[in-house]
């Protein structure tokens, strides 16, 4: 069971990392326009003409 010494902090660190990523995305305004974001993913990058 000594493996817990590594695994538990690792699991918590991963969780904290996820939370940090979420908070960053929130702060970055990623949730301000959910409708638009859905379409941007499939929009063409280059002007069509």
């Amino acid at each position, binding site marked *: *069971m000594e493996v*817990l010494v590594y695994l*538990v902090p690792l*699991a*918590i660190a991963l*969780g904290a990392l*996820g*939370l940090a990523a*979420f*908070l960053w995305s*929130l702060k970055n305004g990623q*949730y*301000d*326009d*959910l*409708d*638009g974001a859905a*379409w*941007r993913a*499939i*929009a*063409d990058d280059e*002007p069509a003409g």
Partner: protein
Amino acid sequence: MESTIDFSHYLKRAGSGLLHLDLAVEGISCAGCMAKIERNLSKMPDVTSARVNLTNRRLALEWREGAIDPALFVGRLAELGYKAYPFEPAGAETREAECARSLLRRLGVAAFAAMNVMMLSVPVWSGNASDMLPEQRDFFHWLSAVIVLPAAAYAAQPFFSSAYAALRGRSVNMDVPISIGIILALAMSLFETATHAEHVYFDAAIMLIAFLLAGRYLDQNMRRRTRAFAGNLAALKAETATKFIDDDEIRTVPIAAIRPGDIVLLRPGERSAVDGTVISGRSEMDQSLITGETLPATAVAGSAVYAGTLIRSGALRVRVSAASEGTLLSEISQLLENAMQARSRYLRLAERASRLYAPVVHATALLTMVGWLVAGATLHDSIVTAIAVLIITCPCALGLAIPAVQTIASGALFGCGVLLNSGDAIERMAEVDRVIFDKTGTLTLPELDVANATAIPADVFEVAGRLALSSRHPVAAAVARAAGAKAPLEDIEEEPGQGVRGVIDGIEVRLGRPSWCGADVAAHEILCRDPETSVVAFRRGEVCHVFAVRQRVRPDAAEVIARMNRMGLAVEILSGDREPAVRAAATALGVPQWRAEVSPIGKIARIEELARSGQKVMMVGDGLNDAPALAAAYTSMSPVTATHVSQAAADAVFLGERLAPVELAIRISRKAFRLMQQNLWLAVAYNLLAVPIAMAGLVTPLIAAAAMSGSSLLVMLNAIRARRQKREMP
């Protein structure tokens, strides 16, 4: 022809020589529009960023200071086929957005903590059944405590502060039992962890917080979306005023930049956006939007002009007494305030439920503790069981039951052109049994229209329409609109006070007063038949035609009223207009109950009389004179063309030319209300099932977690049924 707006009021500095402008854009409907606008505007020189927000239909622009005039952007957007207006977020909208952001952040923290704690809890649950060492279990419990306690302290603050505020005001709301439940669960779990016990409830507590925050966020998001849309509508109205910057020079400025004391110019065909007093000039003015009276009044120096007044004949110089949001009659403002207070006494369904709920739950928990003590259990065990009862009854499903339905129903309402001003409007609309309509601007369309269009030959109509484009008179504008005229005729001259004339193929054409066109007889005939009508005559060579111009009834009004009657709703018309006009409309629409020449006070009196006899009245109106009645009624709606004050006083605003949204709003609300009640009953049924188990002391953390998520899921799924209404839309 059209002067450009002065944008300086809306420009913001974005640091390091950049300027920022927010535009509300009409016509953005899909991803294609988004890509087109962004691509084209970013190509303009000096533009550093152009980003469309598809959710609230806005465009944020940034460019290097100096070279570009912001009017260029609006021009470019117009070339692309979009109308854009500068936009300034209202204070309320900014606050709502901030609040939603904070809720989402707390929800994120709670959800991540819940996930991580669940990772620790599942081994403990399975370990309890097999061979986990007590030391390992304690270790996992402590770890859970370290994760949950700070997360809960942060994430549950909205509940704590709301409960504290309620308790200080000596009342109880839903957040009181929630806070007590959370605090007791956490405290007990900490104590149990310290005493090496088998069961702790950290996971249940943080999960509860996460679910409840999800409900709050949904609720908040719905309000935010409506507010953003309403903000756009205000911007799209593009209210500008022509302001004198010195004695002769005028400039078109946004209405937000007008201050009391300024002098503005009101030209024929314009709607005043300010309250003020006439300094010079003489004009007929149409105050139907304010008083419901359709006959024009005459304004001379010294007359008062109110926002919403349509200037019909001459230009006026007006000194502004109140601009923009401050505009309204003081008497109406007083009535409005009183009426608003009366409505705030309405108790929301959720509040009623929580008033019943808190005492029952707390009594049950107390009873459980006493019962176990009497039965001979230790004090510790009795308290643990009682707290388990509190945890399992914590109103998780209850907290989601109503916001979930509200969110989905308001989405459905949004889809058929109804914007809600207040979250509890759905509950009140569902209970309506009588609908009172105002006539002018509500049952009729606010714009004038040609009533005898079928009697006029198409080619005459077309020429008259093109000729009418050269006049600013509202009656002529109605002819131009009805003809769908786009291209004005060339070399048209205006005869002041008479009309416009020009020459086509060597034949003289005139549009204007019947006497000027020699069409007195025909005009007199029309006026005798329908005194409400304004007439304008058209003459080509020796041939005359007379256009009867009046406000037209909304195209589907009669149908909608018939359908409402079939739904069991009583329909009534209360109008400030004169009797013959109201009688004609009532007869045409098949409404037997109507009253004419009703003052604002009279409207309130009628609504109160109906309220005393136990009727739940919905008022639908648009004028300034309707605003107090809108606020006094049990619930209210107004068309989007209504005055600011009426829109603010109404529970909901509907878009478009049709009256159908009023009927749909009631239908959707009724269905949503049924679902809310069902959800509350589901929550009660869940409690009836779960509480006896908890009282018996059989609830383990596993059961608590399963029960909580199960009931929340059930309530959410039931709420989604509110969406189905959409299919019944015409």
